[in-house]
């Protein structure tokens, strides 16, 4: 097809230039898709950081704590049971003592207790949490067990997650597209001359009219829809406002070229 050929020929007269321009176009169109992808993977990361409610338990070291842990893990509603090493117990000591709220000396703990950290599944109701704690008491025996209070699911992390997503959606994506757009536009202006010239000459010496607009229509359509299709397969649905912005920018440039052009010496 003549117009597509004209598009690539005029941008690839110097191959490096052509490659740079194509890459810039792909970046510009692609930026509308990347946001959703980045947002999703960042949110996944944040979600991993988020934990359910949990509590500590100190068990008489004569008890087989790994058996206790195994029993607990079988319970529905328990996400994770961590058997604390001596080092863990020590490092968690401050928190343990704080939540235990009892005057036990550190030496004593180190000698006669082993620790467990029990994490509930996210969003587990209070009632179920209490059932699990009761079960543990029955399993070990009240005299051999000390349980800490339940640490609530951290609400602020949830809030952070929400505002983080909002921030990415409102700022990061548009900024990325805007930068890619400016870069792309500057390149287009720089490389435009050769394309205008070859288009002008086609109008002068071939029976054709509106060559620049038709050339841009063919070239942009291929790059836009080609990139969009590839990015859709890789990253899914684009951010609508951004893809509209990219489309409008290209379309406006095309519209500006629907006119008779002059030779630019």
């Amino acid at each position, binding site marked *: 097809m003549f117009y597509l050929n004209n598009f690539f020929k005029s941008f690839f007269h110097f191959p490096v230039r052509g490659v740079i321009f194509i890459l810039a176009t792909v970046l510009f169109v692609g930026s509308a898709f990347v946001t959703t992808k980045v947002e999703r993977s960042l949110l996944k990361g944040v979600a991993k950081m988020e934990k359910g409610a949990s509590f500590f338990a100190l068990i008489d070291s004569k008890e087989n704590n790994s058996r206790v842990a195994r029993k607990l893990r079988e319970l529905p509603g328990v996400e994770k049971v961590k058997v604390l090493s001596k080092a863990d117990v020590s490092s968690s000591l401050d928190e343990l003592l704080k939540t235990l709220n009892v005057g036990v000396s550190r030496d004593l703990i180190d000698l006669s207790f082993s620790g467990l950290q029990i994490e509930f599944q996210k969003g587990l109701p209070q009632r179920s949490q209490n059932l699990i704690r009761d079960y543990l008491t029955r399993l070990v025996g009240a005299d051999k067990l000390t349980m800490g209070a339940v640490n609530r699911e951290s609400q602020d992390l949830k809030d952070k997650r929400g505002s983080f997503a909002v921030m990415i959606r409102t700022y990061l994506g548009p900024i990325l597209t805007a930068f890619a757009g400016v870069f792309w536009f500057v390149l287009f202006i720089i490389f435009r001359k050769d394309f205008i*010239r070859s288009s*002008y000459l086609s109008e*002068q*010496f*071939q029976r054709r009219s509106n060559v620049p607009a038709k050339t841009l229509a063919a070239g942009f359509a291929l790059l836009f829809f080609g990139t969009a299709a590839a990015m859709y397969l890789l990253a899914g649905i684009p951010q609508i406002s951004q893809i509209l912005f990219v489309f409008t920018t290209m379309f406006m440039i095309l519209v500006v070229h629907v006119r008779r052009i002059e030779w630019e010496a």
Partner: protein
Amino acid sequence: MNFQQSPSFSGQRVSGVQSGLSKNLFRLEDVSIRFGSIQALSNVKLSIESGEVIFLTGASGAGKTTLLRVLSGDIKPDSGKVSIPSPKRCFISKVFQDLRLEMNKTCEQNLWAAYDTSIYENKKEFKKDLEELASVLGFDNRLDLKVKDANGGLKQKVAIARALLAKPDVFIADEPTASLDSGNARRLFEILNIYNVRKGMTVIWASHNKELVKNFSGRIIHLDNGKLIYTGHACFI
């Protein structure tokens, strides 16, 4: 005129213009154009028929380029009436005074700008015409030369060849012989005559060199200070 040496033109194209031979292609009535304080054309009245060979003469600044631009539809007059053929019916190709070649490309690459797929069957056919024309104009051995490395005469020949390869109905050339010696200029004139006779191509050629024009047949249009002061045959100048 030596027809044996002339290029054999492939692809006979019957133009709509040829069928109405005596019809006025261009008609200008009292056309005036000003650029600021300069009156480039004043009250020019002129008509050109299909198949004519016209020489537009006049000193530098007389308004030749401006008149050619009016004829090719590039500019509209400030006053007066202009009737020019529609581009669909009648194709005009031009040799611009500033040539308008792509400097970074070779002579041959520049000629390919005229490869019109509605006129030529395929690239081979175009290439054949290209090589013939280059050989007739005497630059077939310099086709691979970059235009920026070419001398003025070669550049002019490339611009002329490009306009002719477009197989126009009307050929408009602004000072096409400015950088050519008289031998080359005469050769070009012969070639244009062949195109005129064989294909009915209308030729409009502007030159400030009156000497050149004297020897040739065809109609003279003489401009002075934007006024058309003579139109008729060369022998009467």
